[in-house]
């Protein structure tokens, strides 16, 4: 069996690029975007399995035209096939809808043994899409995976919980949300870049997938307002000799630091 892997990629603004004005509207300083960092790790996880056990890696991106940049980059890194689901201009911020669209696209592509997504995006850090996608595909999922092995149609993963490392085992198909420790994303090879230029990226529209376009009115949550995070008041630079500064700091922090407390809950 060749393992069939679908990796979902999201295009996100570069960090620090998004601002909100007083009217609560979003503004982009440069408008530049990048592949979501954890998604790049998910892709790396898929490519390592390809190296080890001979998988087929399909990358799937949903969104405006910019996601095509990430899809090409993924092909240049070694993905076999790229699929773009266009969102007809209304870039969705509804995780549940995104998961529904990705599920429909994966089904349309004939399913997958392993679906890999980044554990969260740098937009909201919520990590909702992976577990929701698994639910819509009716397959199990494991979050925050840092190691994956595939053998005899079974998947074994290692993941971090806050106070333990778990090893889990499942039959395919399964979805994993992938953490950084899976390994650093590889650089594209020259051969890969040439191949990526030539690769035809297949495109699905929402209606190709038999879905209705996202309507904000039907979302289960709505945004009441957007505002800039309150700025922190600018503090003070301590003055004097190093010893004087240290003495001041120790005094200033004294009330806030309970020295020599025990650590909590067996950690």
């Amino acid at each position: 069996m060749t393992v069939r892997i679908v990796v979902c990629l999201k295009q996100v603004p570069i960090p620090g690029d998004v601002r909100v004005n007083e009217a609560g509207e979003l503004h982009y300083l440069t408008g530049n975007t990048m592949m979501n960092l954890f998604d790049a790790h998910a892709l790396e996880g898929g490519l390592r399995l390809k190296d080890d056990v001979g998988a087929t890696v399909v990358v799937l991106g949903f969104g405006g035209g910019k996601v095509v940049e990430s899809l090409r980059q993924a092909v240049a890194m070694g993905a076999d096939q790229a699929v773009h689901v266009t969102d007809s201009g209304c870039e969705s911020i509804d995780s549940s809808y995104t998961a529904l669209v990705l599920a429909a696209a994966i089904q349309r592509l004939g399913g997958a043994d392993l679906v890999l997504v980044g554990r969260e995006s740098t937009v909201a850090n919520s990590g909702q899409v992976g577990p929701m996608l698994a639910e819509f595909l009716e397959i199990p999922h494991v979050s925050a995976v840092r190691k994956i092995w595939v053998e005899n149609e079974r998947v074994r993963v290692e993941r971090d919980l806050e106070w333990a490392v778990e090893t889990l085992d499942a039959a395919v198909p399964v979805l994993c949300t992938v953490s950084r420790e899976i390994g650093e994303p590889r650089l594209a090879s020259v051969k890969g870049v040439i191949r990526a230029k030539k690769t035809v990226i297949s495109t699905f529209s929402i209606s190709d997938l038999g879905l209705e376009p996202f309507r904000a009115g039907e979302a289960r949550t709505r945004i009441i307002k957007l505002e800039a995070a309150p700025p922190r008041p600018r503090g003070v630079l301590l003055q004097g000799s190093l010893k004087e500064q240290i003495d001041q700091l120790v005094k200033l922090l004294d009330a806030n630091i309970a020295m020599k407390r025990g650590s909590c809950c067996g950690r």
Partner: protein
Amino acid sequence: MVGRDIWIWAEFCRNEPSPLTLELLAAGRFLADRSGGRVTAVVTGEVSSDGAATLGLYGADHVLVLSHPALARFSDEDHAHALAAAVKTRKPAVLLLGASIAGKSVAPRVAAKLGAGLLAECTAIDWTAETLRGVVPLYGGTVLATKEVVALPALAVMRAKSFTPLSPDGNPDVTVEEVRLAPGGLPERVKVIEVAVEETGEVRLEDADVIVSGGRGLGRSEHYKLVRELAEVLGAACGASRAIVDAGWVPYKHQVGQTGKSVKPKVYIACGISGAVQHLAGMRNSDIIVAINNDVEAPIFQLATYGIVGDVLEVLPALTAAFRKRASEG
């Protein structure tokens, strides 16, 4: 019809509710007082009588235990399945989960099963106009979205340190209701075959009141021990910038920031960290920020409460010595 009860999903570590669970109980109490419902702490798995009593002391009116052999360990799908089924039959108004790895994994799956609205990564919540509202930071915390759930039941995932646990003078004899789930009643498609508990003796970043964090300004991997020494004296957790995680000086679990952990200690001491937006994203909500950096222009000074301009290799040992002296005197 959906009731007015507020549920919280309780997580345990060694028979003790996690610190985040105690915070959720406070959040649940706050919402229930406004909605006019009860606070139910839901345990998927097992709970000792001590554990259940603790939940009562910190604000639960009722403890619901969903038990099944497959829930003894954390498997994402099974726990989501059990929780969703209970929400469906008992119809609480709100289900709160903590932004732990497990909570962030279970919540979306439950929401998708129920077709319910989910407010993820909330730093504040309120019961307004008969529904749930929450504040959700976006884009590394630079943008705050206030969101509302359109229909009940509503789910919310709460970031650590968004609520302070109540003082433990609640109900010590809280009622515990156990529901044994039928054999075969869970998917059981993923099996946990090993759990290796990490006995590092370290204070966890998420729980810490004080964090000492190091960056590339430490110069060399060996110098990270200066961070550890100060942390040791202060009973603090050790943090790091992405730069030194990438350089392999410390493991990823210490990384603070947009692609690391989001923390909210009382005191955050940034040593040789420039203060890139992605780092600030993870610690800008600390009560007090102390920055030690030899470059007066470093962006970290723009939000530091107290700054020391100096060489971290000199300042850190001096600070450790001063606090050590203080500790021995006090």
